[in-house]
């Protein structure tokens, strides 16, 4: 039985209106890759922000509890929260171009990420940066590090973001649509990179995506988010083989080439009958992944 890394039950929103996430219950086990799939506007990114308690900077709020490694993050003072960000929980954002400060050289960005949690001096910084770059399949020579974000490709930029995210070896990596800005080949490479990192570093990954097909090759478990509610959560195979929720079925039905068999079409009256169950989070099932874990 793997240790529970993160367990949350939150409601989050912006301003005074309807919450964008309603009573979401979600858990991440150590070392697993959990894919959070939903359409645009379903609240996926808000969940990532809420989790890091950064949603306030976008004018939002979050309530509930977020227990990470046995500590409730909601009760932490901001100073402790800051210490956690980047060191225990890494974040990779959707657009590598806008996520890198255009005015800083790559080396300076990495260094800033390092200095947020460690002291500046000497060899650990060089070693760890080099290692992170290597893990992200990036060259770590000076000529590359001296470049500005505008001087590297989008794929490379995404790898730099990943390298920065794993610099402090966090136990959880949140990837918010990390591949949606990339071309197909680069997408595949980045997906593979996440799988590799997960394997090599045993870092748990919360992989947020709208693309069910691509995550199905990567994730151990998948959670489906629809209009702010978690409608389904379970091992990939289980979700694909026997989707419980009509929305999941529709998602799977839309896939160009389903990985297993053709899901049955959902009868219209079934759909209506199941509407009532929407909004109730599925019970969390233990991971059934095959990857190495403690």
């Amino acid at each position, binding site marked *: 039985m793997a240790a529970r890394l993160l367990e949350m039950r939150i409601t989050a929103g912006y301003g005074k209106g309807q919450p964008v996430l309603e009573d979401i219950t979600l858990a991440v086990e150590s070392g697993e890759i959990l894919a959070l799939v939903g359409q645009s506007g379903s609240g996926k990114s808000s969940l990532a922000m809420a989790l890091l308690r950064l949603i306030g900077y976008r004018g939002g709020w979050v309530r509930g509890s977020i227990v990470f490694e046995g500590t409730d993050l909601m009760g932490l003072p901001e100073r402790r929260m800051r210490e*956690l*960000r980047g060191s225990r929980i890494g974040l990779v954002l959707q657009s590598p171009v806008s996520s890198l*400060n255009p005015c800083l050289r790559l080396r300076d960005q990495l260094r800033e990420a390092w200095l*947020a949690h460690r002291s500046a001096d000497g060899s650990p910084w060089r070693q760890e940066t080099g290692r992170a770059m290597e893990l992200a399949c990036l060259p770590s020579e000076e000529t590359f590090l001296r470049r500005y974000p505008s001087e590297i490709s989008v794929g490379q930029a995404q790898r730099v973001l990943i390298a920065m995210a794993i610099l402090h070896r966090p136990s959880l990596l949140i990837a918010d649509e990390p591949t949606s800005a990339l071309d197909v080949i680069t997408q595949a490479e980045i997906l593979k990179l996440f799988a590799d990192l997960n394997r090599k570093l045993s870092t748990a990954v919360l992989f947020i995506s709208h693309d069910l097909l691509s995550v199905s090759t990567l994730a151990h478990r998948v959670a489906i988010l629809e209009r702010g509610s978690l409608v389904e959560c379970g091992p990939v195979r289980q979700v694909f083989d026997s989707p419980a929720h009509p929305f999941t079925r529709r998602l799977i039905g839309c896939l160009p080439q389903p990985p297993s068999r053709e899901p049955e079409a959902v009868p219209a009256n079934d759909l209506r009958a199941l509407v009532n169950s929407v909004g109730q989070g599925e019970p969390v099932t233990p991971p059934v992944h095959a990857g190495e874990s403690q």
Partner: protein
Amino acid sequence: MSRARMAAWIVLALILGPALAAGWIAPAPYHRQFREAIAAPPSADHPLGTDELGRDRLSRLLHATRVSLLLAPAAALLSTLLAAFAGASAAWLGRFPAGAHQVSSDLLLCLPWMFLLLTVRAALPLDVEPLASLVITFLLLGALGWAGPSRVVRAAAASLRNSDFLLLARAQGVAGWRLLSRHLMPALRPVLAAQFWTSIPLFILAEANLGILGLGVVEPLPSWGGLLKELENYSAIAENPFVLAPAALLLACVWAMHVLLARKERAA
């Protein structure tokens, strides 16, 4: 190094070098009046001619360059730094500093400047040295010129507040002063640079206009502003086009500094 940067270095060196050596290489003292050569056209003795009091234009230009080229950017730097600090903290620190900034910059922008500057002039002794008067003037310009630019900075900082890269920096655990100084400020640099560039010629001209109040450059010390004022008399330009030399130098300098200090992010 790009060709433009190389050219900019050469231009700056050509302007600053002789200016710094003005004391040695100027053909005449800047205040010496050649009474028999009033408003003379260029000649072997006076390569750029003489002004209305018979003073050698080249010598005055060299000395003026030294004075203005050191003081105006210094004042621009001062006001830009103040603007950066005021604008960024107003955009960053929430409602109260934002309100305070709004009020103080409004106040500064609509203040009866004349009155304030007159008070300053009255407080100075009458026989203040020309150079001291000039330094005080630029200091004043720098210390008081931040209000306008700080609003631009605040608007830019407010829009950066929601940018992905600052969000990511926060997600990396960066916060507080470091977030401001290492992540926000570099991103504001283009805005600040623009404010800096526009301030330099502005201050040079403002200094000349303050002469009305008895501040700024006092005869016989030359400054770019003072020399540029001569351009008001357009008939003089027709007689001796070298009167335009200070304007050309100002343009060349602003261009060169712009090329040299502009960062590569402009390529983005």
